[in-house]
């Protein structure tokens, strides 16, 4: 295989794996922002919490990696309901600024708590044998973990797509994103719907946080460091759009990976340049409503 094709395949593969992580973590944020217009800067903290739960379960309690991911998602999803009911709902009608301040306050508290409990040094996670090493996909070897990430991402996309487009609850969510007042008028309980999507979204974020440990390591700053990327995915994709979030995750994931492969000095330049370019042309993102 010629040199450039090898590089191109590597970029696509790594970019795809990265995109799946971005999609899994950001999709909940997109739907909750689309539903309530709530700017949740603590979303990264939920992802970080998921990551640390996975670390504790695998390292201290000896639970397997995959069961830990599931437990982390369920625990964080359930805990997020407490925050939503107790704190967030007071601010649905407040300004952007107040929502930004409240949630960034929560993120700071989460970072401090994580630093206190786990220390500032990045943590890793023990993987089962079948996720280590490489997997042969016919023409080349690829790292198994990334292949697993892509496969899991595809499964989740199909499940979410089905839930969104083919079930009753999905139809209600789409109706509420489209026109909240109208949805309430025809008897949809948007409040309860929101609690549900918030819990699912936070659970998915926790799953993403657990999956990210192997890719980037997990330190308390995760909550803010990657939050910016999640928000960018949401903004570029368009609020409340599953399709948009996926497209944005793919574009940004591949661009970021390509930038890091081809121009290692330019580092994060590409993601932000692409973001600015997209948002200047389409302020509401790919599939957002103007």
């Amino acid at each position, binding site marked *: 295989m010629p040199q450039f094709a090898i590089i191109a395949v590597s970029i696509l593969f790594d970019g795809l794996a990265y995109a799946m992580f971005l999609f899994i973590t950001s999709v909940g944020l997109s739907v909750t922002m689309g539903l309530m217009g709530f700017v949740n800067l603590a979303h990264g903290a939920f992802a970080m919490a998921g990551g640390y739960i996975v670390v504790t379960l695998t390292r201290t309690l000896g639970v397997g990696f995959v069961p830990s991911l599931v437990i982390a998602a369920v625990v964080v999803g359930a805990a997020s309901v407490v925050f939503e009911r107790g704190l967030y709902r007071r*601010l649905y009608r407040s*300004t952007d*600024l107040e929502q930004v301040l409240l949630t960034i*306050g929560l993120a*700071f*508290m989460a*970072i*401090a708590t994580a630093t206190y409990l786990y220390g500032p040094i990045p943590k890793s996670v023990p993987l089962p044998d079948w996720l280590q090493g490489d997997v042969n996909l016919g023409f080349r070897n690829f790292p198994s973990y990334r292949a697993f990430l892509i496969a899991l991402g595809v499964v989740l996309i199909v499940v979410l797509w089905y839930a969104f487009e083919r079930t009753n609850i999905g139809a209600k969510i789409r109706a509420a994103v489209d026109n909240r007042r109208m949805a309430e008028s025809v008897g949809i309980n948007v409040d309860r719907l929101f609690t549900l999507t918030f819990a699912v979204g936070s659970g998915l974020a926790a799953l993403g946080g657990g999956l990210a440990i192997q890719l980037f390591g997990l330190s308390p700053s995760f909550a803010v460091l990657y939050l*910016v990327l999640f928000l960018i995915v949401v903004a570029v994709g368009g609020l409340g759009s599953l399709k948009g979030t996926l497209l944005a995750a793919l574009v940004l994931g591949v661009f970021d990976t390509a930038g890091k492969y081809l121009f290692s000095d330019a580092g994060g330049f590409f993601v932000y340049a692409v973001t*600015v370019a997209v948002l200047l042309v389409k302020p509401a993102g790919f599939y957002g409503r103007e």
Partner: protein
Amino acid sequence: MAASEAITSATRSEARERAAEYLLKRHRFRLAETLPWLAAIAVYFIFPERMTFGSQVLVMAMFALSLDLILGYAGIVTLGHAAFFGVGAYTVGLAAARFGWSEPISGLFAAAIAAGIVGFITGWFLLRYRGLTLLMLTLATAILLQETGNLRSDISGGYDGLPGLMFKPLFGVFEYDLYGHTYYLYVLAVLVVVFFFVRTIVYSPFGQALTGIRENVRRMHAIGSPVHRRLVTVYTIAAAIAGIAGALFTQTNAYVTLTVFDFDNSAKVMVMLILGGTGRLYGAFVGAAVYMVLEDYFSKLSPTFWQFGIGLMLVLAVLFTPRGVLGVFENIGKYFSERKKS
């Protein structure tokens, strides 16, 4: 026909007079306004050994003041105000390190112009957007500037920054001293000038128009106010002031690194302003002083504890005192004056 025209023109001139009177009344000085300045001078005599720290508080107060202009008065929520602080900081830093231009006061002007230009260009493009899009675009602006600096680390010094900068004595006479006495007075003097400039803007008809935009953009459009032009103007002014604050930061510390563009820096100045109270000029002073003193004390005890404390303060501030420390004082004042009446 003629009669009704006469009435309209009479009422119109009367309304104009009333408006002018209202603006002048608000612009008038109150005695309480001398307090922060007296406090700043008192600090100079009471804590002569903490002047470097004092200068940093004043620099952050100026930075917060520039944010107050756009956030508190015009209602623009930005997550990238550090961009302009950074441009100002690097303007004087690069001028001193690469071109040997180390005269401090002309450096301030250069920083204001450079940051103002960046503010004008980005503002012209970005201020058409709102909500999450605007938050992301302002954030991306700061990060793009940081990445540009990182890309050309041969010029900017990268994350190691530009250490050991030397600046010429002020007016060619007053040397930089070890305890930073000269610089404290220098920063204070610049802050006085900037503050009165901002105060004049805020109480001018232009400032009133900004408040109008904050309160109800649609109505401002409807009465024919050039909203976009006004927003870009105030954004440019705020950027220039943030640039001056950044330049003073470099001059007082004698070094600068790319961390000035950090999201943390943008978030920090916003927290200060919120703690002090937005849209009230002196909120920037109170917020910067309270924040910096608490940080100085608690982060020495435990940085983790301090971070938790800031988070908790923010949450509590949003839930219970949306108008900041000064808002609490105002409420107390109102309570007592109402009791006196009844």
